[in-house]
């Protein structure tokens, strides 16, 4: 197969080719939605291979926390925060911690090159992965919520609010996770940031806020998962204030938009150095 054309001779390869004439037609580039769906599907299939044990860990951790807190708090307002907090903790574990680790490792190992050499919009890669990780959290969050409600005798009637809480808290936390993973200069740091974020969601989200000192309450207000927790916790009451629930969810959505935009920017930066 090494047939050498006659004109290929030493020195003959120096001419600069004509650039203007006959530029090749560019291949198609992938549009946002189809490629987002493709990334989402591929990421979701990874769950079967790699994520299931971790999803179990996430769920058991949250269930364990509700059991532990059962010995500390009685039913009532505090129980509501515990159940809501431990449910949203599943989202924090998977979307923030695991996604941060995933992108950190992908970046460090050069795996981003695969996406970067495909004509795919950066937002499709980030949003597809974030959406998939947010989806991973659905079973764990539901199981924790149902278990917690049963344990503390809370009503299941407004469980449907999770349909809004999971995607919005998921967007906010996955966006943060992706941004941490893509911005961290080393994968260990991405893992550390993800773990810290999850610990913060655990400590500030699950424990009832009323007993906390002012500084901790401020930190709690800064954490996006808090608003997901609050939105869910408010719906346990007999007559929930839906306007406040909407505001809480609006904060999650806002943080989600900003953090996913930052993550997209971070991806672009990490992919082409």
């Amino acid at each position, binding site marked *: *197969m090494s047939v*050498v054309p006659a004109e*290929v001779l030493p020195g003959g390869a120096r001419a600069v080719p004509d650039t203007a004439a006959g530029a*090749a037609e560019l291949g198609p580039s992938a549009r946002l939605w189809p490629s987002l769906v493709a990334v989402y599907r591929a990421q979701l299939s990874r769950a079967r*291979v*790699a994520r299931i044990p971790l999803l179990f860990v996430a769920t058991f951790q949250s269930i364990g926390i509700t059991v532990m807190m059962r010995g500390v708090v009685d039913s009532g307002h505090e129980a509501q925060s515990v159940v809501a907090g431990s449910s949203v903790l599943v989202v924090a574990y998977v979307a923030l911690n695991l996604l941060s680790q995933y992108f950190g490792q*992908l970046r460090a190992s050069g795996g981003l*090159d695969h996406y970067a050499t495909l004509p795919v919009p950066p937002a499709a890669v980030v949003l597809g992965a974030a959406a998939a990780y947010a989806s991973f959290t659905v079973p764990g969050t539901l199981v924790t919520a149902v278990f917690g409600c049963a344990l503390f005798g809370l009503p299941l009637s407004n469980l449907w609010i999770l349909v809004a809480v999971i995607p919005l808290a998921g967007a906010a936390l996955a966006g943060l996770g992706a941004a941490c993973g893509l911005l961290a200069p080393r994968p260990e740091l991405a893992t550390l940031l993800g773990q810290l974020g999850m610990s913060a969601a655990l400590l500030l989200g699950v424990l009832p806020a009323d007993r906390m000192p002012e500084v901790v309450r401020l930190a709690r207000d800064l954490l996006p998962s808090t608003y997901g927790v609050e939105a869910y916790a408010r719906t346990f009451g007999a007559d929930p204030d839906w306007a406040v629930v909407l505001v809480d969810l609006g904060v999650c959505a806002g943080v989600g938009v900003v953090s996913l935009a930052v993550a997209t920017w971070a991806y672009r930066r990490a992919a082409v150095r």
Partner: protein
Amino acid sequence: MRGLGKTYPAVKSRRGAPGTPEVRATDGVELDVRRGEVFGLLGPNGAGKSTLVRQLTGLLRPDTGSVEILGHDIVRHPERAARLLAYLGQESTALDELTVSLAAETTGRLRGLDVRRARAERDAVLEELGLTPIAGRALKKLSGGQRRLACFATALVGERPLLVLDEPTTGMDPVARRAVWAAVDRRRAERGTTVLLVTHNVIEAETVLDRVAVLDQGRVIACDTPAGLKERVAGEVRVELVWRERAPLEVPEVAVLRERAAESGRRWTLRLAPEEARAVVATVTGGAAFAALDDFTLATPSLEDVYLALGGAARQGLVKT
């Protein structure tokens, strides 16, 4: 070469790769690759091959110089690279947890194919490379060679006129290797696909490449056909002598040779004119020296010899041993 009335994919880049300061990963590299050619980049680890490829694929912005692919300026429009070329990198982490079939399909989708075409091309490519039986298995669970072949398959889904392959056949068995080169040949014959191949493997380079550029410390130290390169050292043959325990330096002829030999344990490597080589072989295969001789080989120059003769870094071989 312009007499043919074609524009050729051209690679020209000078001085690149920031990263660690003061390291010139590519230093004034100038190369022209012609359309439909299988062009090789050969060089030891750290020669700048990967940096060059990253610059060419739009992953890394060169500090100076220009890269032009099929008439498109890649330095000014790095995003066009993805629409002109398919890149097979050394890492498969982005695909590891997918099945072979989904990896190929997803990559096709991300190259802008619609679902139907992505699936059709996926099936065709997997069939062509003999991957259909393992299509449902995750890449992670495959052997190194099979995984590499699956990654190669993803590079073929969603036709591109230029394939940039970074050591595509690492770890592959001969059957898989043959499938890769057959697939490359077919695309070249049918669609005039151009291939830029990064390799360590000198033997493979000799058999598949039309032309080869030898890179060393970020510079192109030679660029020619494999045969053309070998002609440069055509006057020499390589003699390898392996002694049983140690070289019989008490034999005067052997003692003389020592100065010209590259010693590596019990092995001496000599580059000699053919007549000299004949004399050396006669010496060591007769008389006192023969008793100390374990093995000897006499070989015509290979690309590896060319590389050494050109003064490659540290004067080591290209193939890791």
